[in-house]
């Protein structure tokens, strides 16, 4: 058991790949945005890669271990200290009963993952322990960590001193610029040639008005094809309006002139077009980017996107681990 002393900024229990099978009822998958760092965190402490762990966002929590535990931190650097001693990222660490883990704002990246040997042991909801804050379900009481709350931990056999090989780490950029993969579609034919070129050749700023539901982007104007303008009235009046349809996770959803990347806690349907989709291989980048950082988009094929995801999956294995 672990006691919550400070919550951090919306720190939540997540598991991977999150909630499956309830999308059609309106439940998005939830789960960690940077699922690469998340899985590495679990592997370090001897868990299954998808076991439940904590996702800290921008500012980490302060926790008190009630019993000895093996834990690991991956992702963004939130300056974690265990009883005042700096804790290395990407490495499993032993904590004794009564020790305090204190974290601060992210120095690099945006999300830090805390795994515990044995995993976070909360009851699954619709087959997943992931927290869906908007729907008030999953995780601990359907909500982020609360001060004074307790995090139940299962029984695990982790050991300390395991670390991720340097060459297997997600390569965080240090200049605040990200090259994000996108695939064309489903509704790219609503955007004219000039608009498509502008999207792919412009720099886009990640708005501070972003969260796990969607990332809002700021950039140049969109222009449309005839299909978006000359259409049946039930589509709605704006060029970006269409008949209600389901939303893929990662879709770049265009409402008026504002593109929003739909993330893990997305609303599942609506009446706006999705000209492009960010494939799963780029989600770790979304998870680690900070407000006001810059995105540029790289158009790749579906096959290439699937190959890049397989390459990431391949590093989420015991082969990526060495003893410190």
């Amino acid at each position, binding site marked *: 058991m672990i006691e919550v002393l400070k919550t951090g900024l919306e720190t939540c229990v997540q598991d991977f790949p999150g909630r*499956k*099978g*309830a*999308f*059609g*009822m*309106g*439940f998005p998958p939830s789960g960690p945005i940077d699922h690469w760092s998340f899985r590495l965190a679990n592997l370090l402490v001897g868990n299954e890669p998808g076991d439940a762990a904590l996702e800290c966002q921008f500012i980490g929590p302060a926790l008190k271990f009630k019993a000895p535990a093996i834990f690991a931190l991956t992702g963004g650097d939130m300056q974690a200290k265990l009883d005042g001693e700096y804790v290395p990222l990407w490495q499993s660490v032993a904590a004794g009963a009564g020790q305090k883990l204190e974290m601060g704002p992210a120095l690099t990246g945006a999300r830090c993952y805390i795994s515990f040997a044995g995993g976070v042991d909360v009851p699954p*909801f*619709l087959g997943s322990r992931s927290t869906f804050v*908007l*729907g*008030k*379900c999953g995780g601990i009481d*359907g909500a982020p960590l609360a001060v004074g709350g307790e995090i139940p931990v299962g029984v695990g056999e982790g050991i300390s001193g395991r670390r991720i090989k340097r060459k297997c780490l997600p390569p965080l950029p240090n200049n605040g610029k990200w090259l994000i993969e996108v*695939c*064309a*579609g*489903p*509704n790219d034919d609503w955007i004219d040639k000039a608009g498509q070129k502008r999207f792919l050749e412009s720099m886009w700023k990640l708005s501070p008005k972003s969260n796990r539901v969607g990332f809002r982007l700021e950039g140049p104007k969109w222009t449309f094809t005839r299909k978006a303008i000359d*259409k*049946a009235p*039930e589509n709605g009046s704006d060029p970006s309006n269409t*008949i*209600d*349809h*389901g*939303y*893929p*996770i*990662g*879709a770049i959803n265009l409402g008026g002139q504002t593109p929003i990347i739909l993330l893990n806690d997305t*609303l*599942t*349907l*609506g009446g706006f077009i*999705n000209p492009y*989709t*960010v*494939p*799963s*291989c780029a989600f770790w980048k979304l998870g680690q980017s900070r407000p006001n950082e810059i995105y540029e988009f790289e158009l790749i094929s*579906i096959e290439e*996107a*699937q190959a890049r*995801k*397989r390459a990431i999956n391949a590093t989420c294995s015991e082969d990526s681990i060495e003893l410190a």
Partner: protein
Amino acid sequence: MIYDKPKFLPGGDRFIEMELGDELNFDLNFLVHALTAKIREAEIQGLIELLPNMASIVISYDPDTISYADIKAEILTHHLAMGSLEDMELLSPIYYIPVLYCDHVTRACWEDYCAKITEKEYDPDLMVRLNDLDGYDQLARIHSGTEYWVAALGFYPGLASLIALDPRCRMTAPKYNPPRTWTPKGTIGYGGSVTCVYPAQTPGGYQIIGHTPVPVCDIAQTLPAFKDDLALLRPGDRVRFFPVEREEYDYVERRVEAGNYVHNVASYAKFSIRDYHKWLDGLEMKERF
């Protein structure tokens, strides 16, 4: 129009949007749900989820189990085997939901919006004006005068998009601009030509015209209807609203709070598209309730 052959539009490495047509049309929506049912039955390896909507189905799949080309080919086979729309029949339970129209909860929500966000016409007044009705009584009579078809489920967990099956009872409504920051759970909303029951307290953009104490989604699964499921309604189900007075509303609310409310559903009901078309053909469209 309804396309002869569905369009497959890829959405990244693990989603496909399959478009069956490009309009709001009951037959098209019926086809969407009939095909969704067929694909579900087929239990295609590597297919993860289906998200049917008005005119399209979003499909999520695992590309390590099935390729884009293979899942597309397999789904096309099921589409080809669909047969004639006229011959289709679906089990379509009818849920009866009591509504207190133009009530205290609706008014309080509207007053709060006017005070905190911006002044706007009271929603039932706006509905009466835009749809050329005599008053609140006719608004209730028209809204409760038809069966509704669950055309889609989602946006928010358990939220069903309902369309009127009797064309004489179709109304239209603009959406709030800017949207409400909160809508009480159980509020009856109307936006475009779609009506809904808010499954939980959420933001919202539909005009609000009444309130029901009957829950349509319950993640705690307290009432008997939610024993095996969290959401009451599924696409292809039907809803019938009936107007009640405050006394009956309070009674139902007490039953819900006590955890012993039993949802009223005719679960044996079937829907035949041929019979529906025949009934539509015989309607005198100028008659209004």
